[in-house]
């Protein structure tokens, strides 16, 4: 560790290697850009990951040798701690234009009259820029999905959608074409930042191996495990909390993997939600909508699935579905490992079966077979980027049109994500028919006594939970149109 700059945070910005030696561990990327660098194009609209004004793009090296390439993804700089971009390329709205020549994404925004007050615009440009890099061709739905985490209060979005759809119709720019983004010099610049030993800074450790991590956590059990920081970031920006020693798990190679092991997906603790959900959805297509409505692309690019589980909020969206599917988590403390059914992990409001010095290594998600009818529904005020009032998940095994096993789990209905045991009992052994589901819906009132808050009243939560059960039945039993987004529009 005597190498100069080895404890500095190093990343690439506009082709240059930036070394930051003196930032506090919780300095956000946004704060660094605006306050330390006077690079003020990136805006703060909320400091909680919800508006997208602060969107920047991170470039990461994937593969190695001849397969090496850059992967560009949008993230919220307002809740992303600066040390976590060590070894990456940072791209901001100022990076795109070639002198006075605008990038196609920017030019399309200008040509479509897609900015009014302009305060949201840098964030939209960066989200679209990430899409520009990811896709050769784009369609409207991709544009809309991409922009789920960017709020604009002025335009009504139509011209921004149009700009997104038009951006690939411009001539390839010299700077930041798709080819230029994959240029050797970029790969080499980021490649040169690869560490041989972990980044260890005051207040921030970033181990690179699982054994190192386990030893560190055991040795410093009061430290805070940081994954994507999409929950933790808010503790700093919103709740003004002082954090203890941070141990960042994002660099631990063993935790970055997704494996298919004997009919179950094993998703490591450092896998971003984006990748976790795409693996899950590939095997359980019924969860497509849930995956898409989970936060927004930039939040999913930073946040992890295991972070959602470990945070254990009663309104977290992954848990009902994972509990319904019978997910197991792997825990580790020092050398010791154990596995636990996910539903047994939650003991009480924000209380978990997690010992001091212990952490979650991975979650195993069993892939259901064809006899299992699966669904997960989310109820919130807004379709995109909203926290659930109620989230329901069902995995019902059916044989001869009878329910042979039922796993039903809800979020938003109790202090923890939990199974609806009485509703399950009301179904098992019964014909897969309206009567049994009506009884199960009634039983939900015994399973849960939800609360009222700004997201919904207790009455709505219970009624919504019951009606989602009814929707599940109807979706499997009738040919009726059941969802508002599936209705045809009169032309």
């Amino acid at each position, binding site marked *: 560790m005597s190498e100069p700059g080895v404890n500095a945070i190093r990343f690439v910005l506009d082709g240059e290697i930036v070394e930051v030696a003196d930032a506090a561990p919780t300095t956000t990327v946004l704060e660094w850009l605006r306050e330390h660098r006077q690079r003020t194009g990136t805006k703060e609209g909320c400091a909680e990951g919800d508006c997208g004004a602060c969107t920047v793009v991170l470039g990461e090296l994937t593969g190695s040798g001849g397969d090496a390439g850059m992967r560009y993804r949008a993230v919220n700089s307002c809740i992303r701690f600066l040390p976590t971009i060590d070894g990456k390329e940072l791209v901001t709205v100022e990076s795109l234009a070639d002198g006075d020549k605008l990038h196609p994404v920017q030019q399309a925004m200008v040509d479509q009259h897609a900015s*009014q*007050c302009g305060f*949201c615009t840098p964030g939209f440009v960066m989200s679209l820029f990430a899409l520009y890099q990811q896709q050769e061709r784009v369609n409207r739905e991709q544009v809309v999905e991409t922009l789920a985490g960017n*709020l604009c209060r002025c*335009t*009504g979005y139509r011209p921004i959608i149009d700009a997104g759809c038009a951006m690939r119709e411009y001539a390839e720019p010299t700077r930041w074409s798709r080819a230029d983004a994959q240029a050797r010099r970029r790969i080499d610049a980021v490649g040169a930042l690869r560490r041989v030993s972990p980044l260890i800074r005051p207040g921030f450790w970033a181990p690179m191996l699982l054994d190192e991590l386990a030893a560190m956590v055991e040795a410093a059990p009061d430290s805070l495990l940081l994954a994507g920081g999409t929950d933790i970031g808010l503790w700093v920006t919103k709740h003004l909390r002082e954090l203890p020693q941070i141990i960042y798990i994002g660099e631990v190679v063993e935790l970055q993997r997704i494996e298919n092991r004997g009919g179950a997906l094993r998703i490591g603790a450092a896998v971003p939600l984006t990748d976790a959900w795409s693996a899950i959805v590939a095997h359980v297509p019924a969860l497509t909508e849930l995956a898409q409505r989970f936060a927004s692309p930039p939040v999913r690019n930073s946040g992890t699935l295991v972070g959602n589980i470990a945070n254990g909020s009663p309104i977290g969206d992954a848990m009902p579905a994972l509990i319904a599917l019978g997910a197991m988590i792997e825990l580790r403390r020092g050398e010791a490992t154990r596995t636990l059914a996910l539903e047994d992990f939650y003991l009480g409001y924000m209380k978990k079966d997690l010992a001091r010095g212990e952490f979650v290594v991975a979650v195993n998600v069993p892939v259901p077979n064809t006899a299992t009818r699966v669904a997960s529904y989310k109820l919130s*005020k807004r379709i995109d980027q909203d926290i659930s009032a109620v989230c329901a998940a069902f995995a019902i095994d059916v044989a001869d049109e009878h329910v042979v096993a039922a796993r039903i789990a809800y979020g938003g209905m109790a202090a923890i994500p939990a199974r609806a045991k009485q509703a399950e009992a009301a179904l098992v052994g019964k014909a897969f028919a309206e009567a049994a589901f009506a009884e199960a819906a009634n039983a939900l009132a015994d399973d849960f006594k939800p609360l009222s808050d700004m997201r919904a009243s207790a009455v709505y939560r219970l009624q919504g939970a019951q009606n989602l059960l009814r929707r599940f039945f109807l979706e499997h039993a009738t040919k009726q149109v059941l969802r508002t987004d599936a209705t045809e529009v*009169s032309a």
Partner: protein
Amino acid sequence: MNDLSAKVDVGAPIGESVRHESAHLHVSGRAVYADDMELPPSALHAAFGISRVAHGRVKSMDLSDVLATPGVVAVATASDVPGENNYGGIVHDDPIFAEGLVQYAGQPLFAVAATSMTIARKAALKAKIEYEKLPAILSIRDAIDAGSYVTPSQIVARGRAREELAKAPHRLQGTMTVGGQDHFYLEGQIAVAIPGEDGTLHVHSSTQHPTEVQNVIAHAMALPAHAIVVQCRRMGGGFGGKESQPALIAAAACVLARKAGRAVKLRLERDADMLITGKRHGFIADYDIGFDDMGRITALAVMLASNCGYSADLSGPVNDRAICHVDNAYYIENIEILSHRCKTHTVSNTAFRGFGGPQGMLAIEQAIDDIARTLQLDPLEVRRRNYYGESPRDVTPYGQYVEDNILGRLTDGLEKTSRYRERRAEIAQWNAANAIVKRGIAFTPVKFGISFNATVFNQAGALVHIYTDGSVLLNHGGTEMGQGLYTKVAQVVAHEFGLPLSAVRTSATDTSKVPNTSATAASSGADLNGKAAQTACRTLRTRLIEHACKTHGVEPHEVKFTKGLVQIGNEQKTFAQLVQSAYQARISLSATGFYATPKIHWDRSRLNGRPFFYFAYGVAVSEVAVDTLTGETQLTRVDVLHDVGKSLNPAIDRGQIEGGFLQGVGWLTNEELWWSANGELKTHAPSTYKIPSVRDWPLHADVRILEHAPNPEDTIHRSKAVGEPPLMLAISTLHAIRDAVAACGTAGAIPDLVAPATPESVLRAIDSLRSTAD
């Protein structure tokens, strides 16, 4: 074409879809907002300390821990305000720092300046404050019961409403309920105060009303107005939220700057902004309406009551405008409007796009929908039968004649292009066949009065300089918040001189350049400032023409300005050459322009007169799908036909129409302000307060500007104001949801749908219809 440095030149910029003057800066991160400005190295960052109770007496406030926090340089309370501790513009009931009494959870009690914003925020939390809690009034009904008002109630009456109601062939009563709305401008409130020499202050404020910020600071700092310069280059959104509120932020920054002797930036982070600053007024309207078999209204008595929050702020004028829009598009011969301005212990509500007008309209639109359902008529038919028409059906309850009515043309046009009738039939079929997803459709009109109700505000000034290279610098009292005002006024100026747009630059709105300005509000920005700038240009043009006549021996009509050239008789000069020559002849190349809207007058005590120069109109059809299991709704299609007179810039106008519409949809559907039982706002960030996101823009949208419809009044190039009116097109969405909900009940049943129509609100309305049908 990808040119960042120069503006796109178009020959004759009036009526062209010229891009926003800052578009190239917005997309590249080079547009500078108040928070982006470079500050002196010694500058401090500030935060407010706020009340945690809705209503209480402050027994003690110990700020010693705040001040002892390392990095904290100054703390200011009411006693540090050298002059008047008030930022209320009309009634002086808004303390900058509360003293003794707190009247809402979130009310500023003190402010801290420190070396960083984080330090200031953390330090502010260390205050030890003891309150004696007092009973808090939190709802409109409770305020009415307690007789708690911020300003006296008002009545406007015409004809014999009570007698006609008693005689009406049909009569019904109902209540319209609508919540408030947070502005959620993407850029939060911010001011930077920089002390200058000799006690002066230079202030950068994100404000729609620099003059008011200047005046409030002057009073608070006990300084003459000439000692204070307030500047605003651009806002990251305003929507009315930066009309009266910025004065609070700027005044507090100045008090701190004076105390610390250093520049102070006071930026409200999102939660602080939403907790501290005012919002749109929530309203209730109890109506009693009489009508005949055809659905024609014979009489209406309506009680409007709004939640003004703890102080008057702009609530008087907001509620006056609500009164003036209860009629919306309809002639109501016998009418009685009673308006209560309720005082509650919540944040003081303020201007918001539409300024009370939308709430007034919601009342009549709901009543008309009730009539249609009762008589089982198409609501559009009932609307049309009640439209303003020929004399005597052409006079509003407040005495203004509706002379420019084009609703018939708009309605016929949109009815056809939207296929309203056919679709209504298709939807009825769908609803008969589908039990779970119900669809609904609604057609609603907007007639919105343009001008500030208070005549005095309808004035504006501009300053135009021509430099000897022929470039033009424009300054006016209007502010740029994204609405494209700088672009439109620059178009007007370029047009006057026959110059390309790139020859005209607009400098930041600045109280030291154009004084005594009105707020950029009431949709009036382009109307007022465009005319003022045009006047200044005409003064200059006259001077240049006179000069050319003298030097070339031609008549004035032989001098023409086009395409950057000046045709003088048979000779052609560049504009710069003519300007040079005028300079050599010692002719002034700088002029001011002034404009006062003609024809208008308003008797505030009787609420009578001609408050509006003209009306702007629009119509919309929304179609929605409603999931009757969950109450979730989706706007599936919208068709709009909107009147902007002869557009100065169709792209910008379309942007206002679309943006205003969706903002209105947000207000009426998902944007719910939710207070806890003890009066704390719990929806104070985008995680809990849900404005529309990209998926909420309907997949099928047909938004059109009415062609060939110049303003009959002599406005700037016969254009019409467009900032506010389109917001009210969103009433069609609420009514489409109402229509879908109604499909769950028996024919003739009236849904009780409360706005915002959140899934919960919709499901409640469906359930109550179904339970009455059972």
